[in-house]
Each structure stands twice: as structure tokens, then as C-alpha cells.
């Protein structure tokens, strides 16, 4: 099992963990962390593929993904604050007023 395969499996594993976090946890913060996890998995996959292909392109994209993750978490957290102000809690079982 050389490193390439391990790292690919790890990135797939992290991606699924991210999905699991989204599905499982009611606490929106943890769901945010789930999304971060998925993005990390993407980064790992990018880097591993770029190493296999001997290209710089993959690593470069990671740079963009990281900045994007930063922007996204900023917006995510401010939305979270907004939710906290309106609903008093950040649990998704409270936020079901829009339905039908």
C-alpha cells in the first residue's frame, strides 16, 4: 500500500466523515466543521493527485480552496451568530418555521 493509495483513501475517508458530520449532528457549528473536513479532504486529494501527476497545478488549487474555506467559514459563523440571535440556539431542530 504505497503512500498515494493511503492518502487517497484518507481523503475519501475524511470526505465521508464530513458528510457524516453534516448528516448526524444537529449542532450547526459541528456541521460547519463537517464542511471544513470535506474541504480538507479535497485539498488532500488535490495534493496527492498533483504529486502523482508531477504537476504544480494541484497544489495551486489548494491555495484557492483554503482561501475559499476561510471566506466560507467567516460567512458561516456570521450566519450562525444571526441564527443564535433570532432563535436563541443553533440547533437545527429549532429552525423549522419554514415548511410545507
Amino acid at each position, binding site marked *: 500500500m504505497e503512500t498515494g493509495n493511503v492518502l487517497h483513501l484518507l481523503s475519501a475517508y475524511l470526505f465521508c466523515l464530513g*458528510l457524516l458530520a*453534516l*448528516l448526524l449532528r*444537529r449542532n450547526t457549528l459541528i456541521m460547519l466543521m463537517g464542511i471544513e473536513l470535506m474541504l480538507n479532504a479535497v485539498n488532500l486529494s488535490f495534493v496527492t493527485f498533483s504529486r502523482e501527476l508531477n504537476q504544480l497545478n494541484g497544489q495551486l488549487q489548494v491555495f484557492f480552496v483554503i482561501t475559499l474555506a476561510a471566506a466560507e467559514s467567516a460567512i458561516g459563523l456570521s450566519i450562525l451568530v444571526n441564527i443564535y440571535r433570532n432563535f436563541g440556539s443553533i440547533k*437545527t*431542530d429549532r*429552525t*423549522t*418555521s*419554514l*415548511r*410545507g
Partner: protein
Amino acid sequence: MTTSTLSVLPLWILLLPLFGFLFNALAYPLAAGGTSKTHPGVAGSVASLFMGASFVLALLGYGKILGGADALHQPLYDWIHFGELKFSLALHLDPLSSMMTLIITGIGSLIHIYSIAYMSHEKGVSRFFAYLNLFCFAMLFLVLSDSLLGVFFGWEGVGLCSYLLISYWYSDEANVQAARKAFLANRVGDLGFVLAMALIYTQMGTLSFAELIAGVSGAAVAPWLFGAAALLFFAATGKSAQLPLYVWLPDAMAGPTPVSALIHAATMVTAGVYLFVRMHVFFELAPALMSFVAWIGVVTALLGGTIALVQTDIKKLLAYSTVSQLGFMFIAVGVGAYQTAMFHLMTHAFFKALLFLGAGSVIHACDGEQDMRKMGGLAKALPWTHLFMLVGSAAIAGLPVFSGFFSKDEILYMTLAQGRGNFLLFGLACVAAFLTALYAIRLLTLTFWGPSHFKGHPHESPLLMTGPLFVLAVLATFGGFLGIPHEWAHDAHQLSLWLSPVVAVTGGHEAALSEALVSGFAVLISVIGLGLGYAIFRKNPDLKVLGLEKLWAAKYYLDEIYQAVLVRPLHALGALVERGLEQGFMFRLGDWMGTGVQWSGDRLRAIQNGDLQAFTLLLVTGLVLVLGILWTWAHI
């Protein structure tokens, strides 16, 4: 086919009554400012003028044909010329239709003159005369046209006019119902006519009489021929009030009496007989049907006669008498004696019109009273009417010298002489003749002789009414001499001579009894009938014949049967369909679909419960399904 000379005469005979109609329907009311302001004298005289002119032209036509021209032909125009459907209208005056035109215009003008006086006290009478003229136009169109389609135009036209005239006093609901019954009964018959035309056209590609007769003569007997003949007969029963569809004629008496005289005695009801005589070559090819026709004729004659015996209303009695006499004509047609049928048609027109108009003057005198039990002893008050009614009754009963004697006896003779005739038919016909004598004398005794039950003081009718009565009385007495049987005079039976170019005389093989013997026997029956009748009715008008009279009075419960079998189930079916299918299912179909979709919408709404976890679950399941399908596809 005989040569026919082009002439414009038939067209004018036809158009004159139409102009009369237009004058009375449009010109005069518009000029006078509304029908109510029209004066009966003006309307009546103008209408009679047109009818008289048409009668003169008919005479001219008769003269031309007598003078050697076989027929006068006047092509009108192509009515429909489309793809395989080609119909054109043309007028054709030959001896048969000339005879009919003479009857229609002759008796028509007499009745027009009579109604001037009869309807004098009515308000807005131009409408009445307009309808009368329109009727004559339609009847003339029927007899003059040279194709089945033209006949059908006239056929339905007279049906329409009879509807209009029966419901002339439309403010009274009973008249309106009677008119509707008449029109619907005719419509049922007319459906038979249309289907027959469709059948014939599909087979022969033409509806014109000339081509039909040429095409059919010499052809083998075919099932479709029987079908077409049956349908045409069904139509004739509708129009000429024979057994199945005669119920409308007695109710048609709701109309004014001149209408009954013209339409329900002389002209319209004879249309069926005319049609049979016109297409006799066609009908000869369906012998089975013809004997059926004869039997229908005799049964109707008996039926009419029996019911007439118990009638109390003078016009109803005459109506049933007409039904019975028409039965006689159909017997003649059934057995194949077409010329005899036409002869009886003519004489019947004379004496039945006479009887009706006479009854009219009686009613006029007793200011509208129609129930014979309330009359009686009018002979002194109405001497002329009494005389003319005597002549009429004598003719109908068939006393010698009078026209009825010659024509009815010839029919009785023909039931033996013709191929399809037989003794049973002859016997029943004699019973019918006996009944005729009975109800004839019943009429006379109840209205003119015996104790007078009438409250008011009846006055004789004015000249305008008695004049036409006189003319008709003359015709009723001497009309018979046109058809003296061969044995008795050398140039006998003018009428069959006159009709021979159109109706070939079918060879009558020697009958068991000679014609003289049969007529003697017939006279005997009528004299016995008259005597017996006088004896019975002098004492009390209600006849007791071992309980049968109740059956006859109830008109064999035929009206009730029609009501139960046809009218009520129709309405019930309609109501059932309306409630069950239309409201129950059809209208709610839309709602069911609506609620069905609504229901499924609500069910689907459940998956949209706003919970984020549920959304992510759905999203990931979608993802997994897509990937899973791909994975299995790649690995199979």
C-alpha cells in the same frame, strides 16, 4: 317513360297559394299594423282568390293532358350537387297528380270560402288564412314534385302546417298538446321516410320517380326493396293515420273545423295513399308487404268504425270515420287495386269534406257546442244543413246512386277479384262497411232527429257556408258516376281510363262472385245498418254491445299504452341519465381529478417538513443512489 312537354303551368299552380301565404303572413299584417287589425273578409277573400286561380290553372292542366299531352314537366333547380350526392327538384303534372291537384285546389277553394264566414267572429284571422294557403302550397308541392325528395319536402311541409293549424288557438294548453302530438307522430313516420330515401339512394343512386321505376322494373325481388317499402309504409301510416301512428288524428280535431275538413279529411291524410299509388311498381316488388298493408287497412277500418260508434263529440266521430275510410283505401292498395283506391280517395274527399263542413255549420249554429248529446232535433232549425248532411251520410253509408256506393263496393269487389284478396278480408271489410252505416245514422239521429236537448235557438248558417256545402253535396252524389263498373255501362270507369297511363290496370282474375252480386250485398248491409242504427239511437245515444262499448270508448287503451311504452320511459331514462351519469359522474369527474391531485400534493408536502437534517438526508441519499447505480453498472 311517356314524353313530357315542358310547361310553366305546374309552377304557377304551385306558386299561387304561396303568394297567398306571403300576402296574408307579411304584406297584409304589415300594412294593417299587426295581425290583430286584419279584417277576416279581406284576408279570406284574397286567400280564396288565389286558391280559385290555382284551381282554374289545374283545370287548364287537366284540359292539356286530356288534349293529348302525356305530362307537363318543369325542372326547378339542383338542390344539392356534392360528391356522390346529387339531388335536384322538378315539377311533373301527369294524370295522377293532375287529379290530385284538382281535388286539392277544388275542395281547398270551397273550404277557403266556407271559412271566411266560419272564422268571421275571430280576431287576427290573416294568420289562419296564411297557414291554410301555406298548407295548400305544401300539399301541391307534394303531389307535383317528380322525386321522393320533393315529396318529402311537401310531406314535412304539410306536417308543419297541420301543427300550426291545430294549435291555432294556442292560448289553450290542450290544443298545443294535440298539435305537438300530431307533429311528433308525423316526425316518427318521417324518420321512416328519410331512412327509406337513404336506403334507396344508396342502392339506386337516384330518388326521381321516373328513374326509380325504370331501374326497378324487371329487377328481381331484393331484401333491400322490402326494407325500403316497409319504411315508406311506416311513413304512410304516420301521415295517413293508420294503425300504429293514427293516434294523433282524433286529437287533431282541436283545430278549427275547416282545418279538419281540408287537412284531416280531404288532402293531407291521403298523402300516404298517393305515395303508394305513385310508386306502385316499386311496391309490387314486395308482395309480402302489400298483403300486410291490406290487413293493416282492414284492422284500422274496423278499429275506426268501432270507436266512432261510441263517440259523443261530432268531430271526433267524423275523425274516426276518416280513419276507418282510410283503412278501406289501404285495403284497396294492399290488394293491388290502385285505381280503386284513388277512386275511393276522390269520393271520400267529397263526402267527408261535406260531412265536416256540415258539422261545422252545426257547431257554428249551436255557437261552439260539439257534444251531440246536447244537440238533437235540429232538422227544423237547420233545413239546408240537414239536407246536405243527409246526402253526406248516404254517400258514406254507400246507398246506391251516391258516390260512396260505387267506390266502396268496388273496394269490396276488389278484395275478392285481386290476386292478394281473400274471403276473410272481404268478410271483415263488409263488417267495417256495416259499422260505417251504423255511425252514419248515429250522427244523424243524435244531431238532427229525436228530442231537442239544445238550450239556445240555432240559426241557419249564412250563404257563404251553405254554398260550398251545396257544391260538395252535388259532387258527393254524382261523383260516383266517374267510376261506374264495366258491366253496367259501355264507356265505364272514366277514372281508370284517365289514370291508365300512370297506373297500369293489373289483371283481376274472375272473382268468385260477380261485381253486381257484391254491390247488391253491400247495399243490403248498409240498409240493415241504417235501420238498426236508427232503431237503437232513437231511444238512447249510449250503445250497449255486451260490454264492448267500454273498450271502444277507451279507444282500446291505445293512448295509455303509448304513454306507458314510449313517453314515460323516455322521460324516466332521461332523468336517470341526468342524475346518474351527468350530475353524478360527468360533472364530478373534474372535481375527482382535482381532489386526487390535491390529495397527492398534500402527501408529498410531508417530505418538505423544513428540518435541515431531513434535507441533508435526502441530498446524500440522492448522491449515494447515483454513485451506487454507477458502481453497480461498472461492476456487472
